[in-house]
């Protein structure tokens, strides 16, 4: 049985396995599709929409959309770029992101995406919402000002740590990450070694007492834009 299929992405024909997502197939071919909620090892979620591509002209999230024989995918057209850029800006304005004194700076995927997309300041007006912080846990804190609601922690705690520390509560603009306790993070089973902690793409879940340990110049995204590793792997 031939379970290989081929499709076009930005004028390039690539091979993929049946059942693979567009994002994963592109990655194997050395094509980076920007993403935030998607993370290898976690089930696809499709919430941030940063990985939006056009499939035969129609917008789809490439992290949840499976490949199909002969589809034509746009990953680097102007239209796709503008949609993604606006989504990234939305994530900045709905929270309170102060990169200049955030521990995650330089290792933050949202910040790195902004640089990759040339966003120096969002063109949308800031919302300056009031968000809360939970510093009750001895080793980890949550700063919801920086949360992008990607749900990585929700999935990682369940799928990798075998716990249920995080979940979404509320709806619409009130949607937020809650912890599995009637009180605070310290009342949950969370340990600082949990995958759910390190998997946060932004500075919303942070280990205490390690902030700013990595000097500027040695941080993850100090020298090359996010996604460069994927683009280099196959060239």
């Amino acid at each position: 049985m031939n379970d290989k299929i081929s499709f076009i992405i930005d004028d390039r024909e690539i091979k993929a396995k049946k059942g693979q997502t567009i994002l994963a197939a592109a990655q194997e071919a050395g094509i980076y599709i920007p993403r935030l909620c998607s993370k290898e090892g976690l089930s696809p979620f499709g919430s941030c929409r940063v990985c939006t591509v056009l499939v035969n002209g129609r917008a789809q999230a490439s992290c949840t959309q499976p490949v199909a024989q002969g589809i034509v995918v746009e990953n680097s057209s102007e239209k796709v770029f503008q949609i993604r850029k606006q989504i990234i800006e939305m994530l900045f304005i709905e929270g309170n992101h102060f990169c200049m004194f955030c521990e995650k700076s330089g290792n933050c995927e949202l910040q790195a995406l902004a640089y990759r997309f040339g966003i120096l300041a969002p063109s949308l007006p800031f919302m300056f919402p009031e968000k809360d912080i939970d510093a009750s846990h001895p080793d980890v804190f949550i700063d919801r000002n920086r949360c992008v609601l990607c749900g990585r922690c929700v999935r990682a705690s369940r799928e990798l740590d075998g716990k249920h520390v995080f979940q979404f509560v509320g709806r619409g603009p009130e949607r937020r990450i809650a912890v599995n306790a009637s009180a605070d993070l310290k009342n949950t089973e969370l340990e600082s070694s949990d995958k759910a902690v390190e998997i946060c793409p932004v500075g919303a879940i942070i280990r205490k007492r390690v902030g700013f340990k990595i000097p500027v110049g040695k941080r993850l995204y100090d020298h090359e834009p996010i996604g460069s590793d994927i683009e280099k792997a196959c060239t």
Partner: protein
Amino acid sequence: MKKEMESTVKNICRDSGNDKIHLLDILRRVQNQFGCVSDEAIDLIAKSLNIPRVDVESTVTFYSFLSKEPKGQIVIRLCNDIIDRMNGYDKVAKAFREELGIDFGETTKDGKISLENTPCIGMCDQAPAALVNGEVVTYLSTDRAREIVKILRLTGNPKKLVQRLGDGNNAHELVKSMVQNNIRRAGEVVFSLAESQPNIALEKALAMSPVEVINEVKTARLRGRGGAGFPTGMKWEFTRAANGDKKYIICNADEGEPGTFKDRVLLTELPDRIFEGMTIAGYAIGAEEGIMYLRGEYEYLYNFLEATLEKRRKDGLLGKNVMGKKEFNFDIRIQLGAGAYICGEETALISSCEGFRGDPKNRPPFPAQRGFLGYPSCINNVETFCAVLSILDKGAGWFAELGSRGSAGTKVLSVSGDCQSPGIYEYPFGITIKKLLKDVGAEDAMAVQVGGASGQMIGEKDYDRIICFDDLATGGSIMIFGPQRNILEVVDYFMEFFIEESCGYCTPCRVGNVVLRNYLQKIISGKGEPSDLDFLQKLGENIKAASRCGLGQTSPNPILSTLKNFHPVYAAMVREETEGLQPTFDIQAALRDSEAITGRKSVLFIH
């Protein structure tokens, strides 16, 4: 009290078999019993169902009829949708506030009565209306509002508010509601069922093979009546063909689209026939179980619908060997919602049936492949099941001849707003807006919203267009706006609605709609610039393209369709800023905090 709560909650959970898929039922009961689902109740439920407490909390905080904070024994939910606002919502709201001495979102000091707003409750043809616990009160006036509060204070019993019963089955002893059907035009397909003999269609279907039934529906070219118009026969075929030990047929009775109330009337007048249609669909796709997802706002119909099901069971029309057909076992249960527009989206509806918050699911897999509990599931609208009966009764050819090219049959419309005769109208597809406006007594209409908030607003130049899937599609909502209305206010209300009802899962819908509304309000306040119109257009298009489900894919429509059809209204509100100033910047507002802290006024920027 604590002990009592513990045993009550435990009993409620046990009644539902301590099964987490019944979480929504459990939460509804706890809410009704205690006026809230408190942290203690959440802990108890989580323990009984053996699920994480945060998962329980996740569901509680999603639905607007559930709350962690204590509510009064009686909750008055005044509908604040656009039609109610046009019919005197403001005055009625003021009367409630004054009579109760509280504001919206508050509870009287004695803990007896809470006052809240709620979006469309499906009573636009008898607005303003409100829900008082499960009871519906309609045609509200300021006097009536004050009287309602007095009666509630005196008796504590919302049932006492029903003084005059509505028509048809609204007067049925299990309904006893003051709701009116307002059926103005009974058409050939749906309301003709009232005259046809029950269960003939089911008998005919059972005499055929399931594949023949599906072919009949395909030949009739029936398309889904919820609004999207997917071919029903194909949906059945996909579900039938999908691999699965079990299959489910689900009736979407969660009409929440502002301005839609036709399913409410069908559920009131034709419940037996709807269940008959579900049974036929169950037979066709190979399901043994059906679920009717009934919106929480229609709880007043619940006992009546349950009794209808019970009678069908007694008559051998549900249960083992339906109508004597060997090896066809089929039964139906009703799942009540709890106040969430998004649950009308079929994958969100499935999440809700499973006891979760109503977040839509990723597609693929589609429900026909993996739906309720992972089993192949077919979700159809209430009206679709009615159409199936007529197809089997009168023949697929007869049905296909009705209506317009591409849209066979009839459509039941819910008409409300500025017209003489709001109510229910069933027409063959293909009717022009002009004809409809003449029939409902609204020939001076300035604008018509076709398809609810998620549809489109059209003006006079489009009144020759027709209602059908390929031109003006609608799930049934038609809202009419007379020349005295302010279009931008209507649009602003729709945007407020979508922001409230977004599940918040994906970024473009959660954030984008808020940004859209902020820009709209900037324009409404007279501070808009011509470039803001281009911005609204582009942002709206991006939200539509990038959102995850139908809500976000349609939520910019009020803005986009009015930008297209009522451009002069926007153009008149914006002006080029020539002095290089930012018109939205308000120096006084910016200084307010500092002035408060320092305790003195600015000497440079004098008020």
